[in-house]
């Protein structure tokens, strides 16, 4: 347990907060990889998920893709691409981003697809009968209602990408993984723990922000229904209990 105290002391040491190997710079690098990855992956996976969810076509693809991509070992894919491209240290970013995008696609795809799927078919039919075009149905009905689940997908994608971006340091990129990968061979376990703690804290903070966004995106109408149905269920259960007694 002493190692934990050492690690926290290391983090709080002001001399570790400056320079290219300082904590702020490593966090920024880490956030940089995460942001690029999640943006690219969202553009691909959410578009695809909305298309599949709305049209119902290619549904088997979701199950197949999410299952198959999960089995791919991240570390293996990363070093394979790095060696295959053979671009050297300066271009290590490309294989890293590809691998992280592959990792982020399954949760995003599942979130977008199940989000649209979860929209009540009667709501969509009602929108259609009011004369909305398919495009309007998608953007004005399905996407707003699916948004909490879509952001749920983004949450798990961000968590996985933040956690896995540590591996990028293995092919000589920056980020918080540097602390872990640099310190392992020299058996500096304090610094390894520092890396582990910082990544965990970063993941928790980002998750907290996204949970907040998820709450905000529940449409006002849906929230009203949720609250009223909760009140109804409690008011209904009370007399049932008293009559049982």
């Amino acid at each position, binding site marked *: 347990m002493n190692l934990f105290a050492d690690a926290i002391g290391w983090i709080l040491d002001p001399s570790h907060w400056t320079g290219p190997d300082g904590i702020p710079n490593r966090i920024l690098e880490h956030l940089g990889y995460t942001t690029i990855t999640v943006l690219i992956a969202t553009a691909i996976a959410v578009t695809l998920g909305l298309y599949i969810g709305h049209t119902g076509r290619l549904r088997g693809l979701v199950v197949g893709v999410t299952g198959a991509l999960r089995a791919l070992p991240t570390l*293996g894919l990363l070093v394979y691409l*790095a060696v*295959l491209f053979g671009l050297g240290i300066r271009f290590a970013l490309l294989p890293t981003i590809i691998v992280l995008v592959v990792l982020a696609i399954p949760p995003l795809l599942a979130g977008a697809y199940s989000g649209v799927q979860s929209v009540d078919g009667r709501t969509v039919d009602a929108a259609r009968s009011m004369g909305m075009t398919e495009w309007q149905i998608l953007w004005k009905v399905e996407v707003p209602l699916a948004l909490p689940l879509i952001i749920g997908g983004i949450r798990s994608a961000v968590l996985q990408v933040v*956690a896995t971006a540590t*591996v990028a340091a293995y*092919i000589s990129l920056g980020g918080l993984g540097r602390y*872990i990968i640099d310190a392992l061979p020299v*058996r500096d*376990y304090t610094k390894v723990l520092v890396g582990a703690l910082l990544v965990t804290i970063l*993941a928790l903070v980002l998750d907290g922000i996204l949970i907040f966004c998820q709450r905000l995106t529940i449409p006002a109408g849906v929230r009203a229904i949720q609250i009223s149905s909760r009140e109804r269920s409690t008011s209904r259960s009370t007399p049932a209990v008293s009559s049982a007694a």
Partner: protein
Amino acid sequence: MTWVLANLEQIWELTVAHILLSIAPILLGFVLAVPIGWFAHRFRVSRGVVLTVCGLLYTIPSLALIVAMPTILGTKILDPLNLIVTLTLYAIALMVRTATDAFDAVSKDVIQSSTAVGFGAWRRFWQVELPLAGPVLLAGLRVVSTSTVSLVTLGALVGMSGLGYLFTNGYQRNFPTEILTGIVGTVLIAVVFDVLLVLIGRMLLPWARVDEAARRGAGSARVKAVAA
């Protein structure tokens, strides 16, 4: 391909090590997660706590947890126990959620009927709740199995055996064939495990297939109605 044939013996040894390292976390995770999930399903207070803890557990990066394990357990850095405990924790974190949902999905009417015909809590769990939660539990276990097999490769970064060794060694030697062999091997193990789980599921849960067929039949009927 020549490299693969020349090194078959080593690849086989690494594969066996990989399989052994994967099995323990998958089984332990399942066995521990089902009762935890049941408690989370049964008691409202424990539900929030358990699900939050599992969520938090999943945010810890796997590599970080593997390297932090010796500090927590007091083991040596090369002890396979570090990897097994870490992956078991992940398996539990993934599985408890599904287990809770699985028990939640068991119809209340069925539970009440079984109580009414005289099932005690213990017999009800084994003969009513567990079998009915089976299909969902199996789906969760398949996810756990696939991700565990793939996570075992990370052990190579801290000097553990398994197919991940082909990644670190192939990277140092700048040799893509070796790395690709490791990737294909890992995916194959994951697929074999998955097929085995599905087969075990068919044997233990024959009613799940009937349910699924019924649902699929109803689904296609609905699609046809919409198309017409």
